[in-house]
Structures are given as C-alpha cells and as structure tokens.
C-alpha cells in the first residue's frame, strides 16, 4: 500500500542545493539558483501522498500554486503534536549507524528507517518518538534547539524523519549537510525559528505551522512564534527534491 507512495516520494535526486544555507546570509547572491524562474506546477507527490499515510498530519497544498514571487510554499500548513528535542541533535541520534545499512530507495527499507527515527536519543527522553513496534510517529512536527542534524553526512537522517511521518522540523539552526540533504531529498522542511522555542514547547503540545505566514502556533500554550523564511529551499522541497526540481526547470532532461 504505502509502498507506492514511498517510491514516488524518494525520487529526488540531486544536485544541489547549496543554495540554501541556513545560516549565512551576508552575501546573498542575486536570485541565483537557476531554478527560480520555472513556472510552478501543482506539486504532485510528496505531500499529498503523505497526507494519506498520516492522517494525524494535516498538510494542505494549495491547489493552484501561483505566485512565483514568494518562495515560502504558499498556503501550506502543518498541524499536529510536536516532539521536542534539545541542542546538537546529531545524525547518530536521529538514525543510529547500525541502521544505515538500510537503503532508502527500497520501499520496505524506507519504511523500516522510519521506525528507527530518533531512537538514538538518550533515555532521558522518556517519551519515544516512534513507539516500539510502530513504523510511524504520533508527532508530525519536531522542535529542536541549535545545530540540529550535526554529525555525519548520512541522508538516512532526514529520510528517517520523513519516513516516520514527520514532514517538518523547526530548529534554531541546522548543520549544513543535514539542511542540504533535507532539501535535496524533499523529505522534510527544515524551518528555522527566530527565537529559541524548544524551551517553551513540550512534547505533545498541539501545534500548527503556517508556512505562508512563517508562523508557528502552539495551541496548548497559546503562544505564537515567528519563523524565518525558508528561502530558496521552499520550492525545491515542494517539488519533491532537487531532481524533480531540476527536471521541471529543464536543467536535466525530464
């Protein structure tokens, strides 16, 4: 069943994204990235399919994505319970090295990866992200501190989170390779918060993220937080990763 969804989802490919570095903003190149002028097509896969898979996540891609001006994936929102982690969550904690023998492009191995997501967190995290025996998480939204995803270059890390059913992470900052892999694969939205929110949110809080307004709303605490714009990366993730994006723009043959 979900096998089909997965294979569509893992399509991605490629190249590049360097464009989207999380932290460095001093010399923003003029509109660079060759991708940006492409007419947007309704995004077909990732998100809609995920919606089917994970009923507890509400992801609503707006049907006619028009305005190419905003790169913030207009109209998209995420809703569900959040899972809160701290600083320097490294890729070993996201997916332990012993599970990296799984190949994400094989549908059932992809699904297995999801079941191991965030299993490397120390036991001080009493609530598990994915319950033993489950493949999916109850928490579609992850909230973290700074330097999320540091450590190895393993793409298994963003893939595991995506496979577990968490399409979005909100952290204070990211390690470079994790950020890039998130975008290249189109697995998750790596969003940055303007202030530190991992101290104020608790695992299990009901949260909504409105991409268009760059806003995170914590319904449990009643607080709202401003997010940074996802920038050049938004359209790439929306397309389903860099390969899909490069194809759309004619950069590599369709």
């Amino acid at each position, binding site marked *: 069943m979900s096998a089909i969804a997965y294979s569509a989802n*893992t399509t991605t490919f490629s*190249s590049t994204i360097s464009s989207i570095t999380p932290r460095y903003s001093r010399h923003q190149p003029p509109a*660079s990235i060759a991708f940006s002028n492409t007419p947007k097509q309704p995004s077909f896969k990732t998100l809609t399919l995920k919606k089917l898979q994970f009923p507890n996540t509400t992801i609503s891609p707006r049907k006619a994505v028009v305005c190419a001006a905003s790169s913030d994936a207009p109209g998209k929102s995420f809703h569900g319970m959040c899972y809160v982690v701290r600083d320097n969550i490294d890729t070993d904690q996201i997916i332990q090295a012993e599970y990296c023998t799984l*190949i994400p492009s094989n549908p059932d191995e992809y699904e297995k990866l999801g079941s191991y997501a965030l299993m490397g967190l120390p036991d001080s995290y009493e609530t598990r992200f994915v319950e033993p025996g489950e493949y999916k998480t109850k928490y579609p939204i992850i909230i973290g501190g700074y*330097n999320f995803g540091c450590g*190895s270059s393993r793409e298994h890390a963003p893939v595991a989170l995506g496979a577990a059913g968490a399409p979005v992470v909100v952290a204070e900052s990211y390690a470079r*390779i994790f950020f890039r892999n998130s975008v290249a694969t189109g697995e998750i939205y790596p969003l940055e918060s303007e202030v530190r929110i991992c101290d104020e949110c608790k695992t299990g809080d009901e949260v909504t993220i409105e991409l268009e307004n760059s806003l995170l709303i914590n319904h449990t605490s009643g607080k709202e937080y401003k997010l940074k714009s996802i920038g050049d990366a938004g359209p790439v993730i929306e397309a389903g990763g860099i*390969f899909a994006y490069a194809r759309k723009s004619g950069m590599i043959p369709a």
Partner: protein
Amino acid sequence: MAMSSMAASSAISSPFITPKDGGVSSLSAQSSSSIKVMPKKVSKKIVSVMTPQQSERKPSTTGSVKTGMTMTEKIFSRASEKSQLIPGENVWVNIDILMTHDVCGPGSIGIFKKEFGNDAKVWDREKVVIIPDHYIFTSDERANRNVDIIRDFSHEQGIKYFYDIKDLSNFKANPDYKGVCHVALAQEGHCRPGEVLVGTDSHTCTAGAFGQFATGIGNTDAGFVLGTGKLLLKVPPTLRFVLDGEMPDYLLAKDLILQIIGEISVSGATYKAMEFVGSTVESLTMEERMTLCNMVVEAGGKNGIVPADATTFKYLEGKTSLPYEPVYSDGDARFLQEYRIDVSKLEPLVAKPHSPDNRALARECKDVKIDRVYIGSCTGGKTEDFQAAARVLLASGEKVKVPTFLVPATQKVWMDIYTLPVPGSGGKTMSQIFEAAGCDTPTSPSCGACLGGPKDTYARINEPQVCVSTTNRNFPGRMGHKDGQIYLASPYTAAASALTGFVTDPRDFLH
C-alpha cells in the same frame, strides 16, 4: 609553566586565540606572501607534475579582478570556469573526484539508476572512487549485501578505482582492499592540490590537507554527480586560523583542532571554509594536516584547507601522475574572521562527553576513571598516530591498565605497524611495543567501532563504559552504547590514559 595557577581556565578561555574581525587584508603582507610564493627549492620537482599554465584558469591574469580571493574561492572559480566569485554565490562546479563507500554507495547508486536509467553510465569511470570501509568485518547480512552492491556497480561501470574486499576472514587475502576511505584516498594519490573532491561522508573534508576543496555530500547529491559530474555549490566565506609558535613535543594536531573547536563551538564554522596557515601548520606532516582538516566538520565547517607546499609535493611524489595546479589565497583576500593561536602555550586536551567542543585540559580530567582506550579511525588511526601511541608506551615501559584496542585505518597502516621501527626502541616495531605493553592485537583495517556499527563490530562499546578515543565524535551512542562516554583525545593522551586507567596528560610519561 609560569601561569600555572590559572592555566587550566586560561588555556580554555583562550588568551592564545585572538579573533580579529575580518577586514579586507587584515593578514599581514609578509605572512600571506610567504605562503603564496612557492618555495624555490622545490620548484623543479613541482614543474614535472604541473600543467602548463592556462590563462583562462588564472583569474588574476584576466585583468578583470578587483578583489583578491581566498584559496577556496579560487578553487571554486577554476572549477566553475568563472573568473571572479564572492562568498554566497551558487555555481555549478565540475567535480574532479567523487568518493563513495559501502554505507552511502548503495543509496547513491539507487538514486543514480532511478534518475538516469538502468543503463546509464557514470560521467567518468576514472573519477569515481569507491571504497568499502565502514561495515566490513561483520556477519550482518545487509552490510554484506551493501558491499556486493557497490562491487556489482563497479564492475558494471568499469570503475577504475574500486578497492574490493571479498575474503572477510583474512583481509590480507584482498590485495586491493584499503580501509578507511579518507586515509585511502590520500595514500592512493586521489587527493591533489587545487581540485574539487566530494564524497558521501562528512569527513571528506580531510582531503583539504592537500590544498584542495573537499566536502561531504548526501546520497541524492552524489547520485546527481554520478550522472553529470557537476554539483551546484555555494561559495563559502573563509575563517582563517593562523597557528604560530613551536609545537611542544607532547602535542599533536588533534590537540590543535580540539582547541579550535572548543573555541568556536560545534557550529562556529557552519557553512564556512576553515583555512589553516602559519609556521606551525607549515611544520606539520601530511598526516597531521589531515587530522587538522578531518575535524573541521565537527565545528560545522564546509571544508578545511591547508596551502600546498613542499611537504605536500613530496608526499604526492609517486602517488599520482596527473597534473595539478596548487592555488593560494591572495594577499588581499577577504576573510570573515581571523584567529591567531600561539601553539607553544597549548596543553594536551580532551573533548569530554558528549560533544566535540566540550573541551578540557587532559590534566583537569585526571580523576576520570576509564574502561577502555580506542586508537583508530580516519582521525587517529594513521601510521603516525600509532607511532605516537607507541612512543608513549615505550617511554613508560609499563603495561596498559585497561583494554586498549588498535584499529589501523588502512592495510598500509597495518603493514607499517608490523614493520616500522619505533625511534629509540633499538629497532622494535610498533607491533612489538604494543604487544609488550599488553594492548589488543591490531585488528583488520576499517572504520571499526568509530561509529558503532553492527553489534558484532570489533571494539564496539556494548555497555555503558567510559572510553578515551582518538576518533572524532563523542555524541551519545556514537561508538555503540547510548550511555557510553567518549573522551576524544590525541594518540599521546590516549596511550597515556591506557597506562593509568584514568584520563592522563601524556607529559606524565613523555618527560
């Protein structure tokens, strides 16, 4: 030393590192020109391996240049065929070498096939280097299958540099097998000044020691490179680290990089290039420069880089027949920030659990009881790392008090352990010193327990133990057990700690 009362905290709060705001040419003119100019003495040797100068590759001769560039920017500029670049620009870069291994190779190959078709050919079969090294000596079926996948692919594609292993029971029966990819890349001559090397491993930055741009990428990016030979990369700004002063003989490059990471934190260089210069760096061997660059990713860095010099050219002699063209930072290059470090004042360091920037002096941790010592990995499993450990063991003449695991990075390192004499030992080899000291027998070369790995991996931490390790990461669970505690240290400090059963400053034995 004189300032001892405050030494502990002062070394840490760093009077020795002076950050300077990166003005345009804040670097003094002499130091940059001394780096820029190739030493006359070696020029004859170099000429034989250099390409004829190509004017289109030399932005500085086009006349259009207004600002100087750092060496990282120059490499991007050559590889993207653009005469001038500034940090933040996204450019398509021609890749000189793509490296992948058994963990990420199968995924990259899967993406390559899916996107470019089952019959697709890689862009250049001589520029793809495939090195099985991570999960080799295990009976884990998936791990074994992954090596089969990269083997099949290498044969199908005619990959010229595939370092195969078939007989897992005896690594010596596999003449092509190397071991840890980053060390093998250097030993096999795939690292060349001025080039662009990407690899599906975050420690690919190790190769920056050769004056090249080298960085880690994910499977998806690697799949794209396999098909096109290109990658869209953002030009990073550069942090410059000027290391001067004579290096005390109880310090190793590992101490230098732990000092720097402790200073700028695990995210201090995120997205940035880290350039290492200064008289201390010039005095370092290639293996030590590799240690320095290896851990830039632990500071979040995109790449680390050391200007190529006579030491580099000498190392490369006989290892590569391809022409290469070193580049150097201009005198007026722009650096985001410059840090100056007086190496002569540093002391042996460790990074305490669970972060590589959790720096402390080794002697401050002398009460930390340990359960084991691990010497290995791309950071601390090279020939000179074992030489260093052997030096401490020899100097003490004692036996180790905790299990001490030795995991040579590559087959060549393993050979060296069994053949190279330790200075001052009357001709004894490293292996003899290790045996006399009661260490575990050096095992088969691979990544081993550096990243935990399958449960049956040699020296994996399977219980909540405390380990002093010459590896590069000490995050929770890195070497196996989630509650294991890892103290990162130099091979000197690791060997000294093995001798006492506590975290130990190597000066206790080296004086």
